[in-house]
């Protein structure tokens, strides 16, 4: 295992607000990978809603807070390809015209990783100690897949989970229709996309659908339940950390 590393967890607002279990799963996996994990209290949102709405000024204001909150750690890790991609690729773009902040943004970008790819690519993790005797399928979130190259890593770790059977999802790389504000600005188009996605997930016959981004997962879980499909939806970190039994699936009632 590589040298110990001091890692700051970028929780992301959706995990913080909707699904703390994912945060605890991330901490557990990072610790298993030999990291010391801290959760900077001053963190807020990464600023993506403003940035993707063309509101650079507000995006910058939020990004400045993030840059300050995450200074000094070896790595900044997020259980989301979308938020990690925002910090890693778009912060430098956002501050391209402010040399002083740009240097800090680039420094942060260089240290920022998506959780699962960090575990595999940086920490050399090739297996986990978890058990989940189910058939699962996996949806590739767009930002993680196309901005950060997250594709093989979650499948590799999933293959080591005891009892799990992975059925590949046809169209796994096609967007689920979440798209941040898109899903409420163009609800009918978003609905068409997530309806197709839910249908393909159900057709795999898998008991659980996993992904690495809570935005996609909330969208998919919401559509699966609206359509009456009995497929569980979970963040992949919950299964990898062996914590899938600690909380009901996304959108399922507590016992």
């Amino acid at each position, binding site marked *: 295992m590589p040298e110990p590393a001091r890692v700051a967890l970028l929780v992301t607002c959706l995990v913080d607000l909707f699904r703390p279990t994912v945060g605890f799963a991330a901490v557990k996996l990072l610790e298993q990978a030999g990291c010391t994990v801290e959760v900077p209290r001053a963190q807020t949102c990464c600023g993506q809603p403003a940035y993707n709405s063309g509101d650079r000024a507000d995006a910058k204001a939020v990004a400045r807070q993030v840059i300050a909150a995450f200074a000094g750690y070896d790595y900044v890790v997020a259980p989301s390809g979308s938020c990690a991609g925002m910090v890693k690729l778009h912060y430098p773009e956002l501050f391209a015209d402010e040399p002083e902040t740009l240097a800090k943004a680039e420094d942060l970008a260089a240290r920022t990783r998506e959780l699962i790819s960090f575990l595999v690519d940086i920490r050399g993790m090739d297996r986990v100690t978890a058990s989940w005797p189910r058939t699962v399928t996996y949806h590739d979130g767009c930002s993680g897949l196309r901005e950060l190259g997250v594709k093989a890593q979650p499948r590799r770790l999933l293959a080591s989970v005891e009892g799990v059977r992975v059925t590949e999802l046809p169209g796994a790389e096609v*967007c689920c229709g979440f798209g941040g504000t898109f899903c409420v600005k163009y609800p009918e188009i978003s609905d068409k996309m997530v309806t197709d996605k839910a249908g393909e997930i159900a057709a795999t016959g898998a008991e659980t659908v996993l992904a690495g981004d809570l935005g996609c997962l909330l969208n998919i879980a919401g559509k699966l339940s609206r359509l009456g499909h009995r497929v569980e939806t979970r963040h992949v970190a919950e299964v990898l950390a062996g914590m899938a039994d600690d909380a009901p699936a996304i959108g399922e009632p507590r016992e």
Partner: protein
Amino acid sequence: MQPTSHAFPENARAELGNETLQRALGLARTGFPLRRQQAIERLPEFEALREEGRAIKDHTLAHLDFYLELYERKVIEAGGQVHWARNAEEARAAVLGICRSVAAKTVTKGKSMVAEEIALNDYLEANGITPIETDLGEYIIQLRHEPPSHIIAPAIHLMKEQVADTFRAAHTDLDPTRVLDEPRTLCDEARTVLRPHFLDADVGITGANFLVAETGSSIIVTNEGNGDLTQTLPRVHIVITSIEKVVPTLEDTATLLRLLARSATGQEFSSYTTLSTGPRQPGDLDGPEQYHVVLLDNGRTGLLGGEFQDMLRCLRCSACLNHCPVYAAVGGHAYGWVYPGPMGAVLTPALVGVGEAGHLPNASTFCGKCESVCPVKIPLPKMMRHWREREFAERLAPPVYRSGLRLWAWLAQLYHALAETAGRVLGWAGQGRGRFRALPLAAGWTRVRDLPAPEGRSFQSLGAERQRRAGAGR
């Protein structure tokens, strides 16, 4: 054509409810991406080629004035003429002037998106000249008085039964009881009907995929051969195209052609790749007596040197449309003008104004698939975001949305107290079922899907509590 891009949400809603369109799109959704994938798997250097293609176009755009002047000189040397058009009106006038100079009554047309951009057919008809589209898809939509819904497959929104009905209504001199239920039969009928038009036309108008500066040649790629008949049989050949199509050399063109066919249709090479250099030369067996090129700007030079310059690399291959989940959901007509899909979402605001076309760059999830398949690596999502920035800066975004964003930014900075409260309230309210079927402030979400309820406490407050407990137990 009059843009209806401002009505994108209404257009989209109508198209989502159009069952025939949805069936037609369903057939297209898988075909193009699969064929492209298979074609590039057979070409290991495809990624390197994309980089080369980008470099060729970037170099050309950086020296566009030089290559355009060189191209013009070479066209003249070959005996042709170049007509510079700043806008649609000048381009239409140039075409009409040439047609009138030879007293043209009918013109045949190969497929040209620039001709669509300047609404050439309507203009020619209004001036007493009959244009006849000879690309099968274009011919079908001309008969139906519809705009194209795709830049290389203009009638992709139609099922073959609709085409059969259209042909029966238009070809009234043919046997009304004939069987028209196979694409092959439809194609043969169009071929039979078009053949005399090719022979009778006074002028042939084509577009161009590339203009080669070193030779003064224009190049079209087609799969039907209609372009060749259009440009070699009539006395006059007019090429209507736009300034960013110029490429320095034939060698460069070869590189771009390798990218184009694979990205467009998944072919190694299109069935016909035809170079035209000037009119018929002494000793030539065929070819037109006159060769004209109408070169349209129509706002393109305004993109040079700015944040949208990369858009001028576009080869019009349609890979971005073919892989776009939004295009696949609503089809091309919803976009309300000539260029649909991701390339249209960037280009249309530049050509018809962001006030008219402001919805298009917003109607994207930024899934990034378009950029990943673009043969010349145009950063389409980034440029859509630039349009959103312009709209925000020019206050074109709806006021409700703007104030919502301001509120969000303010809340994001007061994040902790609010996240905790909202999470607890929603978690408490939703714990019975685990999800909400309707939620007053999130109707945009809950109208089409349930909202999973939060677990209850925020990660940060739970984490802090665990730390306190661990500290107390020590």
